[in-house]
């Protein structure tokens, strides 16, 4: 199987990448002024040098950097990302609890942006220079230019406050005690606005790229060949051009998967979404380094995983790529 062998290669390349991120993250954090001990001591109101030194000793922050680093790597390999003293709970458990909502938000926004963007791009290209094309162009331009946080706030003002259609924030209505199917519908209702806020920019981007890519395919010889076979225009567009035009969009989307995590910090904060983004933000505020490193590591793994998935999709769609 050509496809799986190639995938194996890629996987083998991904491991050193993850390790590199681990190393980079650790030393990057060390460069930031202040450590957990000084913050804890400051908050407890007893910031005497003796107390801080005691805290440092307790947490192992007084040991040589290399020793701390090796301990960190050793633990990370076993998915032991340390203990968050601020939250009084293991980092891995904290992250695990938040990973679900973040994945749900990201994948929904990403998937919707990709499919809808592709569809709109095809529509605009097929109806080139018509009113439909113009409308799509204007809408994408607006989506492209709107800041995410402003869009989020406006969505809340319009759809929650004024129209009262959707919940303002949160992941689900815990107080209602929904079960099973009803619970998922409830989560879905909570997901609509953050997903829209996060995905709209990418939707606009993919629409534009897909439109350009489709127009490029229009002039290709194989399209003329298909026409010379007597194929209908509709089947030429969907049977021949779509897949060829989609490949560059997919490549770009794969590169951008990482931006999506960054973007989710803002969206999660605006909508009170209990995901990795808010967790990271809080960890940063309170200098919870263990937690922050853990989040960095998991996010990096996530980006690598999404890239691998996109790559697998690409080699499935394009037979020209060889192992």
């Amino acid at each position, binding site marked *: 199987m050509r496809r799986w062998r190639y995938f194996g290669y890629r996987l083998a390349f991904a491991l050193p990448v993850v390790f590199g991120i681990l190393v980079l993250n650790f030393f990057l954090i060390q460069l930031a002024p202040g450590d957990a001990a000084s913050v804890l001591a400051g908050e407890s109101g007893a910031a005497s040098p003796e107390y801080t030194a005691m805290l440092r000793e307790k947490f192992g922050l007084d040991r040589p950097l290399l020793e701390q680093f090796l301990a960190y790597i050793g633990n990370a390999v076993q998915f032991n990302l340390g203990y968050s003293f601020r939250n009084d709970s293991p980092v891995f458990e904290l992250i695990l609890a938040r990973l679900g909502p973040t994945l749900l938000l990201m994948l929904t926004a990403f998937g919707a942006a990709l499919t809808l963007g592709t569809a709109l791009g095809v529509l605009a290209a097929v109806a080139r220079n018509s009113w439909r094309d113009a409308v799509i162009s204007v809408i994408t331009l607006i989506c492209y230019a709107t800041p995410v946080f402003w869009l989020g706030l406006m969505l809340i003002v319009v759809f929650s406050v004024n129209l009262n259609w959707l919940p303002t924030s949160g992941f689900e209505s815990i107080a209602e005690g929904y079960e099973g199917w009803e619970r998922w519908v409830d989560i879905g209702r909570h997901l609509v606005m953050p997903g829209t806020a996060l995905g709209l920019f990418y939707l606009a981007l993919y629409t534009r790229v897909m439109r350009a890519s489709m127009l490029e395919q229009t002039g*290709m010889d*194989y399209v003329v060949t298909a026409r010379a076979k007597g194929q209908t225009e509709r089947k030429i567009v969907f049977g021949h051009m779509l897949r060829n035009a989609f490949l560059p969009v997919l490549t770009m989307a794969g590169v951008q998967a990482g931006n999506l995590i960054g973007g989710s910090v803002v969206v999660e904060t605006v909508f009170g979404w209990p995901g990795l983004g808010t967790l990271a933000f809080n960890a940063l505020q309170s200098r919870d380094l263990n937690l922050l490193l853990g989040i960095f590591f998991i996010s990096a793994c996530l980006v690598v995983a999404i890239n691998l998935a996109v790559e697998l999709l690409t080699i499935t769609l394009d037979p020209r790529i060889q192992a």
Partner: protein
Amino acid sequence: MSDVVLDIANLTIGLPPGADRASAVQGMNLVLRAGEVTCLVGESGSGKSLAARAVLGLLPPRVGVSAGSIMFDGQDLTKATPAQLARIRGARIGMIFQEPMTALNPLHSIGRQIEEVLSIHTPLDRRARREKVVALLADVHLPDPAQIARSFPHQLSGGQRQRAMIAMALALDPKLLIADEPTTALDVTTQAQILHLIHELQRSHGTAVLFITHDFGVVADIADQVAVLQRGVLVEAGPRDAVLNDPQHPYTQALLAAVPRLVVPQRTAEKPGIVMLESIKARKEYRQKSLFGRGRSTVALDGVSVTLRRGETLGLVGESGSGKSTLARAMTRLLSIDSGDIVLDGDEITRLPQRLMRPHRQKIQMIFQDPYASLNPRQKVVDVIAEGPIIHGLPRPEAEARARELLGLVGLDPSAADRYPHEFSGGQRQRIGIARALALRPQVLVADEPVSALDVSVQAQVLALLADIKARLQLSLLFVTHDLRVALQICDRIAVMRHGAIVELADTVDIYHSPQHPYTKALFAAVPGAAWLQKEAAYAAP
């Protein structure tokens, strides 16, 4: 006479405003009969391809038939609805294109693309379609048709892809086949096979063929009827032998006169000078890098030794992938070699670093194939030509004066100096390319397929210019070409290359009269219109 399949009457194809002329094709009349091959011949921009596409209603946007009719099976195709046209396309009129790589969808298997024709036009079920596809691929003499059907276009060779295209076009036994330069992108031996295949299938099925070409050699091989198009006007049409041997229109006469003959022209033999450029056992290998070090490798040059003497023209002839361009680039140090030596004018330059190489660069200059891509579009012609001398330390005014002088030498008006490359035709650009190469007063010129992208009449002029300049300036010329006819015209000695090695190297006269290596013989046999060209040559000789 046999029955009429296609009757083109008074066809005029209008071009959008702003084009170089009002209509691409003007008042064209042409009748195609069953079982006959009609060659539509013309230079680039003559409107031959548009005329062919008009038959299938495949004209590009904003180009349309403005007058006349195309009668096929009692129906006027210019007035057919899109639905009617779609029923005819693929079923009753098939078409093949110049570049089979781009004409096939890269993401679909060959089998699926041929099957598509069957599923559009026939009620056959999936299994019957699959069987028919394999049978069709066998008909075009592809080895292991079942395997080919599963393959993707990039896994086949150019010749195989064109065979698959032909299988697709002939899948439903159409009455008319339109072939738009179907062999231009192929190697000469492959071209001969494809021409033979089209001829064989067309004879056995009684198909009428409209064959677009610019090559009179191909015409001589395949045509029953010839039509010559000049800037959209059909200037001459008639049976092949009449047109080829007794052309009436001056344009046809000029075109035919420009076709390089398969003969060695009379040349004053010059005594061989000293060795100017030499390749000693040059070897170049391309390895496919892979993570675990086990990659396939391709030997581009397999220990090639060759010498170029002062005042001589040496031809490197071969098909694509033979290593001829690699050798030319290795000898100019545009490419490094793995082992072996390159000696220029007595100095070993094989491993000189860029800085030390610079003084030697003056002595050896290159002319490239594509006159469009090899000139910087943002540079005025004078700057293109003067740049080299300025880099090598000539003051700007002198360099520019030399540039203007050189423009005169290559037959361009000195006023050309202040214009940009896009304002010139292909032949003029190639002249600019030659002037640029000459600006450094080189002793060796390396020309990589310098006339392959040019029309045949322009080709003859550029070849004459090259020969003239070489003789006047006492240059050595290394001439890379895939076309034996061109090589015979200009070269003193010819090296025939295959698979990265020289299989035969001899004086042009000897190689022409008694080729030794079987591959050289095959190349001569594959030259399109070989028999006609030789007869012509014998006739023209005093």
